[in-house]
């Protein structure tokens, strides 16, 4: 690995100043499971790596806030998967975080890192999108809130400007009972990047939200308000047509993980499967009486 400098700031202001330094080419280090691979390959050549681990304002915990949960910048996939509140309310996120890498990777990799990496195939992002996650961004000009649906601008690119970082992610609790599910296709069963991935959410108010990854330059989310995707719906043709409208924005490509035609075919298959699982979960949830 090429040499670089290392900073371990203790406050958010110091961190922002280090990232905004016009003399430096800084990269922020959270879990390191992507960054260190790219440093070793020489794809990234920072002058300085700015470590989040000593920053007390960048929290390593999930806190309950008004109307939802706030996931701090240093929270790992393992912590997401093990959190009882996340498991109760954000099942699809738990399913997505459970398949990121291996145990060793999930023990280091952070949710915010998976977001900021901005891979079109990031497994947790479709889940965050269906739940309406909001990014809390901190930077030299202060803080701002960005809906995650507006966060990505291209492969590896986000709205984060010079000196800005993702301080935390807000997960608003669903207003009505919902069922949600994560799905993906990989070449081997585990420890692989997604050929496609997706999440579906079916709400008891009759609407549905689906988000898709690895089929466009950025993950994207679409909403159906026609009622064709309501739980218990029996009109299969209307359902398939509604799902196709939801992924009409997909622009899959051919790459090492799959062909354009395969990805397009799997969008049909996986969106229907994911709807079926999400709708079943909603029905079970309503039957058991919990929200």
């Amino acid at each position, binding site marked *: 690995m090429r040499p670089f400098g290392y900073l371990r700031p203790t406050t958010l202001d110091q961190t922002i100043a280090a990232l905004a330094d016009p003399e430096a080419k800084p990269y922020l280090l959270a879990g390191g499971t992507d960054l*260190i691979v790219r440093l070793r390959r020489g794809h990234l050549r920072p002058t*300085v790596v700015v470590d989040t681990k000593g920053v007390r304002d960048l929290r390593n915990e999930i806190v309950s806030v008004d109307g939802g949960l706030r996931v701090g910048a240093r929270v790992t996939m*393992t912590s997401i998967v093990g959190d009882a509140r996340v498991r109760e309310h954000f099942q699809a996120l738990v399913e997505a975080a459970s398949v990121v890498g291996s145990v060793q*990777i999930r023990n280091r990799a952070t949710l915010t890192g998976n977001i900021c990496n901005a891979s079109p195939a990031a497994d947790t992002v479709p889940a965050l999108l269906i739940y309406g996650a909001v990014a809390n961004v901190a930077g030299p000009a202060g803080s701002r809130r960005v809906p995650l649906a507006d966060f990505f601008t291209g492969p590896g690119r986000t709205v984060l400007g010079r000196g800005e970082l993702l301080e935390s992610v807000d997960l608003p609790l669903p207003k009505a009972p919902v069922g949600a599910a994560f799905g993906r296709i990989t070449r081997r069963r585990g420890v692989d990047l997604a050929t496609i991935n997706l999440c579906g959410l079916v709400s008891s108010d009759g609407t549905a939200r689906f988000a898709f990854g690895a089929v466009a330059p950025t993950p994207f989310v679409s909403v159906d308000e026609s009622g064709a995707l309501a739980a218990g719906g029996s009109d299969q043709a209307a359902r398939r047509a509604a799902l196709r409208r939801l992924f009409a924005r997909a622009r899959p490509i051919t790459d090492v993980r799959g062909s354009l035609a395969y990805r397009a075919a799997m969008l049909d298959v996986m969106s229907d499967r994911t709807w079926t699982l999400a709708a079943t979960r909603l029905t079970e949830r309503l039957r058991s009486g919990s929200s």
Partner: protein
Amino acid sequence: MSLGKIPVGIEVNQRSFNLEISPHHTLLDVLRDELRLTGTKECCSEGECGACTVLVNGQAVCSCLVLAVELDGQKVTTIEGLASDGHLDPIQEAFVTTGAVQCGFCIPGMIVAARQLLSSNPNPSRAEIQEGLAGNLCRCGGYSRILDAVALAASSRR
């Protein structure tokens, strides 16, 4: 920006070390080259194979994907730290008993990953053992006996 070495205090296998470390050196580099703990193996260097697995504060991680300077004040356990008072860890004993070791290169990582698995889940199912070791590759293909060894270690602790 200084590229110089940084003072780091790490506890490795219950011994404290105060080291001067270059920021671009990984935990794996420091374990093998500075501390001469060569039981931890270097293989893919990108977190795919698990040969470099160690415990950081009890959690299995790929030491090739951690900068050593990140670990100031942290506790690291390597394969060399599992035996105590001259006795192998029950997982190590089980690997010997089942003949789970072929060439042996992947085994330190397998055993350390199994150590975290059994610490958090003392009674894993076969599927849970497979998931716990999914980040560890064995190019000899000796997975069956490796899984048997972890199952034996779990049952011998009951």
